[in-house]
């Protein structure tokens, strides 16, 4: 467990150096990279450790964006709004998790997907609070220059990513992580040895939501304007799954690498093949998953074996 977390720390440190080299464009990409990293790491708790195929990421993201947005229009400061978002996402998702995670497999996937739709409709119809389909304008959090703004939001997202990574590594080394692995392998047996599976699943769902909610909050303040179809975009649910599969299911380092590679592919393809970018990206993802089914982390094992194979 020690070595992969050192790799993860090194990776995060390298990302943190980005403002030294970057212009506002690089910083924008870096901020999205951190956001995708949070998505993938958080999804990995439920999808990787627990083995439940969750499509709820967009629901957490949109919930976080609107919670922070509404609180700030009501006059809360940014740190306070983000903290409240963290707590609200954690508690809300834990309660929902206790109910939703009674379903398994495809049924759970559909239920988590419908959570996105339900929240979108709720926000759409709570016009007084959220502005409904008109969207929500969020007050500026700083009056810095364009570059200063970019650096501020980059670091805000980076800190959220670092906290997510620390949380995920702590979970994977803890009794909680051990219990989640038990549930993934055999939920019936886990129950029979005295593991409170409902409690563990509900905590896992809460933890997978809280930092995605914070990322949504930072995103909302960063772009100043959100509307339901933007932040409750189902692609936010699908992308972390693709990233985790590309990086290596269950491995924190793997899924962060997966997030970075996915963002790289997305950006390169979008810039060079704007007409056919989504088709081409899909094709690349399919090829990667076909030829690297255990993700990028499996490359390390392969290279290692090749190195010592003939000894």
């Amino acid at each position, binding site marked *: 467990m020690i070595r992969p977390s050192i790799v993860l720390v090194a990776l995060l440190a390298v990302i943190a150096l980005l403002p030294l080299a970057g212009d506002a464009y690089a910083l924008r990409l870096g901020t999205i990279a951190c956001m995708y990293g949070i998505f993938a790491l958080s999804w990995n708790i439920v999808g990787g450790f627990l083995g439940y195929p969750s499509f709820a990421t967009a629901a957490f993201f949109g919930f976080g964006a609107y919670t922070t947005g509404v609180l700030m229009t009501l006059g809360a400061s940014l740190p306070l709004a983000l903290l409240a978002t963290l707590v609200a996402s954690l508690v809300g998702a834990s309660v929902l998790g206790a109910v939703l995670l009674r379903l398994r497999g495809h049924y759970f996937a559909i239920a988590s997907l419908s959570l996105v739709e339900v929240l979108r409709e709720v926000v759409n119809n709570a016009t007084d609070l959220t502005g409904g389909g008109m969207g929500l304008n969020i007050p500026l959090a700083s009056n810095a220059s364009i570059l200063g703004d970019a650096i501020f939001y980059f670091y805000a997202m980076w800190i959220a990513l670092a906290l997510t990574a620390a949380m995920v590594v702590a979970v994977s080394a803890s*009794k909680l992580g*051990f*219990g989640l*692995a*038990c549930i993934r*392998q*055999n939920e*019936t*047996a*886990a*129950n*029979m*040895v*005295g*593991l*409170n*599976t409902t409690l563990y699943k509900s905590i896992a769902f809460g933890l997978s939501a809280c930092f995605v909610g914070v990322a949504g909050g930072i995103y909302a303040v960063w772009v100043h304007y959100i509307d339901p179809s933007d932040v409750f975009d189902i692609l936010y649910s699908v992308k972390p799954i693709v990233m985790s599969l590309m990086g290596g299911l269950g491995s924190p380092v793997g899924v962060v690498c997966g997030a970075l590679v996915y963002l790289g592919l997305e950006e390169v393809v979008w810039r060079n093949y704007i007409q056919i970018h989504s088709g081409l990206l899909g094709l690349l993802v399919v090829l990667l998953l076909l030829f690297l089914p255990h993700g990028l982390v499996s490359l390390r094992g392969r290279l290692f074996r090749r190195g010592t194979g003939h000894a």
Partner: protein
Amino acid sequence: MPEILTLAGVSRRFSGLQALRDVNLKIAGGEIVGLIGPNGAGKTTLVNTVCGVTPASAGTVTFAGRDITRLKPYQAARLGLARTFQIVQPFAEFSALDNVATAALFSRPGQSLKVARENARQHLAFVGLDGQADQPAATLTLAMRKRLELAKALAMSPKILFLDEVNAGLNSAEVEKATALIRQLAAGGLTIVMIEHLMKVVLNVCTRIVVLHNGELIADGAPRNVVRNPAVIDAYLGQQYAQRHAGHG
């Protein structure tokens, strides 16, 4: 010995099927009860009902003076009701050691993984799997996985142990090994309820036999009396068995 487990009027219905019908049963501490009956008689359902997997539709289950009818499986497990599964249920990716450690870890509050693993090693040694401690459970043979189930159940420090066909699918040498383990546990004073089809094992080990048929308790008593009971011969043992064993005792 006072009663440790009492079933009073326990019934369980699965929509159209009455799996258990008004079962009354009292088990005293230290008893080794053989639970027999034809396939579909409700033996496993009885164990599931006591352990909280499929709660009783009617009636009450009392364990050590406490009503446990509505408890969840994990709560029953923490009270000291342990069971093995007819179809083995290992954590396939975990090593044999970690499989047993789960039981030690989650069955009591405040355990650390390190202590649980040390604890698990003893139980693995007891069932003779110490050589396979680091092997993933998926790579063990069926006989080993059955013994792993037993070690897992024992790591929960149970007060009562339910064994659901621990000998099914084993060859005779393996059955003998497993039977020796059960005898050893019984000698230690553990209360055991075993579902078993091998009459040789039942007669060898059990102090009492309970017979289920179509969800109803049709016989309950000392092994020698139960195997001569016409209703039991009719429902389960068969005339051939009765004739073959008529000469004995």
